[in-house]
């Protein structure tokens, strides 16, 4: 299912400007409406304000870790089912476990491919 059919909205929380640019481009081209945010401190609040269909959340963010942000979101019943794709630069099973425990819907290690991100976002929004 393409983003335009859904009119889907993606919130990308990532601090690497060129990754933001590339992901924003591929998702927009696929029909998604993409908002971005680069700071960990108020990321949870931004999710509440924007109410996106899918969140892409980097683990290493300035101010606050992606795990903490996700844990806060999951404690809120309104966001307990929100599809969240976690991005990390470390692929050890330990990190995967931590992401799962924090409540990530999917987990992806850098360097990922554009197609993987696109597939993940499509699959998550269809859930």
């Amino acid at each position, binding site marked *: 299912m393409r983003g335009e059919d859904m009119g889907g909205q993606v919130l990308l929380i990532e601090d*690497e400007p*060129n*990754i933001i*640019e*590339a*992901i924003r*481009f*591929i998702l927009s*081209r696929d029909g998604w409406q993409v908002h971005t945010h680069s700071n960990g401190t108020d990321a949870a609040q931004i999710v509440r304000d924007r109410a996106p269909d899918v969140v892409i959340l980097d683990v*290493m963010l300035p101010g606050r870790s992606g795990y903490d942000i996700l844990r806060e979101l999951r404690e809120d019943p309104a966001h307990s089912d929100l599809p969240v794709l976690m991005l990390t*630069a*470390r692929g050890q099973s330990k990190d995967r476990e931590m992401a799962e425990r924090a409540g990530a819907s999917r987990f992806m290690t*850098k*360097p*990922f*491919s*554009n*197609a993987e991100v696109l597939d993940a976002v499509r699959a998550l929004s269809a859930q």
Partner: protein
Amino acid sequence: MPRDTLTGSRIRERRVLRGMKQADLARKAGISASYLNLIEHNRRRIGGKLLLSIAEILRVEPAALTEGAGAALIASLREAAADMPQVSAELDRVDEFAGRFPGWAQLLADSRTRVAQLERSLETLNDRMTHDPHLAASLHEMLSTVTAIRSAASILAEPGEVDAEWQARFHRNIYEDSARLAETSRGLVTYLEADESSPLETGAPQEELDAALEKAGHTVPELEAGADLDAALAKLGRGLSGPARGLLRGWLDRYASDAEALPLDRLRPAVEEHGPDPAALSAALGADPARIMRRLAAMPPEDLPTPVGLAICDSSGVLTYRKPLPDFPMPRFGAACPLWPLYRALSRPHVILAGPVMQVGRSGAVLWADALATPQAGPAVNADPLYQAQMLVRPLPQGTEPPATLPQLGVACRVCPRESCEGRREPSILASTRR
């Protein structure tokens, strides 16, 4: 036998260990409790018959009371026992053990110290791999940059509409990110190289010796002008462990006899004429080519027309000396690549195996190696000699054409990229070049 002043303390310690009251011991020994108390606090000397009788009552050797063992040794043994309570070492007899078998006791204490040291460096390494913030940050930065490059590049490469303005943007991003990646990776390499020497140097005696010789530039001026072995040993051996000093001593002895047989002022003009060629120098000087190789490796750089490297191994193939060249690195531990002529020489003793060599992945520099195996000592009666091999590595002699094809040697299997090699004995830690 010198009696130290702690005999009383040891009596007290043994008595307490046996759970015996002061008054009981005094009664059995036929003295008053207050007198025993003075003895136990080292305020009265004790000897002769009284000592023997107390030792008998406490069921210890008299020597364990008078000499005891070093307090430090006893403490180490106690710690060793505490480390492994499940073994139930006889703690109540620790003095006896240390007193009767001082050598074994010291060995046990030293081994425990060594185990602790190794555990520490293992922890350090482990910590470094998992917790080193600089390493983690660098790797994270590199992976993020690679991700950005990969995303932007695939947008440009894969089918799909990208208008000119976006194309230009992604081109610029890739350019910027690749510059950043180059910078980060350079920084990471510098960091890893700078750190290489610090936490790992808890090495074996051979490694200590190698490090000391490398620091000294493999040359010992003290032994060139009239052998002053003690001065050389004091200078080079500073900070080395006992076993490493022993190795150094043996090395210096050989250096001194080499230098006496072939002093620099005899060697220098011959090298000027013939170059660092062991066979030619041997013919000109009437000297043992193996000795000439060692002398060449020990010559100060200003006396040599070209730098030379030297490897020496014993019959088991383990390197006992290494002086590498930039184009011919040598492994820091254990044995080297089995394809080295050094090892071939062991199966063809007394023949100088000379020829071009090249190490895989070393900018294709062709070098020349002369390898020779000779007995370590003179002929023995009805006994086979023990051989050692030496290999001198030097730049290709002038006028020698590098051959079109040349078997490629490695440093050691673990760091060798060659995939199919009949000499391989363990897998390489290098990532395969084929994907």
